[in-house]
């Protein structure tokens, strides 16, 4: 459901990887939350996620959902970033066979979705293997 208000609201996370760090226990939340699930703390500071990490789990999507058909097959991974936080995203610019648990990647700015030919464009991050 790609609507302008959603795209605008999610920009700090999608464009700048802004996360929240619990001031009490240090747990990192991406996206930021209002209450820490570990210590119930309610105060957070804004931190930027590091752009590098490793693949912790992956798959290759061959039957794609609507809007992603032109990209299939594409690899997707749970990427564990250097500070321990994890994101889920596509792994781009590689053949599907290259993706393995432990693959080192960095995040790049990419177009994630487009609402058809006339609708809004949604940008965000994808993982690219380190070469």
């Amino acid at each position, binding site marked *: 459901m790609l609507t302008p208000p959603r795209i605008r609201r999610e920009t700090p996370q999608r464009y*700048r990887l802004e996360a929240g760090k619990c001031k009490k226990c240090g747990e990192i939340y991406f996206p930021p939350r209002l209450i820490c699930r570990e210590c119930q703390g309610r105060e957070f500071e804004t931190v930027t996620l590091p752009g590098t990490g490793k693949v912790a789990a992956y798959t290759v999507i061959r039957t794609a959902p609507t809007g992603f058909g032109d990209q299939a097959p594409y690899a997707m991974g749970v990427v564990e970033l250097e500070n321990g936080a994890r994101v889920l995203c596509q792994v781009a610019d590689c053949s599907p066979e290259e993706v393995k648990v432990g693959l080192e990647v960095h995040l790049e700015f*990419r177009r994630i979705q487009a609402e058809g030919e006339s609708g809004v464009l949604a940008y965000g991050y994808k993982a690219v293997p380190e070469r």
Partner: protein
Amino acid sequence: MVGIIGFGAYIPRFRIKVEEIAKVWGADAPSYKKGLMLEQKSVPGPDQDTITIAVEAARNAVLRAGIDPAGIGAVYVGSESHPYAVKPSGTAVAEALGAVPDCHCADLEFACKAGSEGMFLGMALVKSGEVDYALAIGADTSQGAPGDALEYSAAAGGAAFIMGKDNVVAELECQYSFMTDTPDFWRREHMMYPKHGGRFTGDEAYFKHVRGGVEGILAKSGRKKEDFKYIVFHQPNGKFPTRMAKKLGFTEEQYKTGLLVPTLGNTYSGASPLGLAAVLDEAKPGDRILMCSFGSGAGSDAFIFKATDKLAQVQDKARKTRYYLDTNPIYLDYGMYAKFRKKIHKNVEED
């Protein structure tokens, strides 16, 4: 001192060879390769566009400039392939860097010189003291019409330059712009592919305006051809810039570092900016650089830079232009290229 304080490049990883395209259209690949001095071109992935390329190039420029992006006071993205006809690419770049909200932004177009235009404006804003840092980006993912000569060369890529007065890595010695109203190459609103005047795009367009830009800046600055270690001209193919260099009396030694087109293709608004970035990746303090862009319609922006001591300190702070150009490219066949570039009619709008 005013000049470039940070620079960065970005080129997508996919490539397609001239032979692959020629095969489909029944054309003679060797003669295209020879005539255009071109082997292959870069292809944007389906998830890449002028905005994504501009953001990555700008991130690299910020790494080299070593500044807090919040200090950037102006962002200009020049392209022929802005993702929206109405809604700037520059605002997305500014948002991605965190330069918002105290920032001026404008999208620029002037065929292949839209990138250098931003540099021209940015330098002037910094000189006047209106902004501390200005960011100019030339990036494109332009389309070549299927079967047309330009399909062999229309490529994707971009470069970004942050301009300011502190910690300058390449001092701006002079800037000059030369322009006329010449219909050599154009695209009407709502048309997918551009059109051009064939051989008219040579003498009356590219050669006339690049010559005008170069001769104009040499006169304005009082410099001579021999003063330059590097020259970078707009490079729609390999033939035009090398022939121009020869006509103007420059040497291969001067142009070879900044000549990326044989393995990159024509990145339109990114072309001479990427050539400049490749030069800055290697230049040594004291080296003088002449850059002259060309945009159909038509005009040229010319700049003279001199590398400072600080350049050596920043070159390795981000991935270099040739890293993007040469490392592990992924080659496509024409079918995959046509799919990526949305040249295939599909029934469903969303897919």
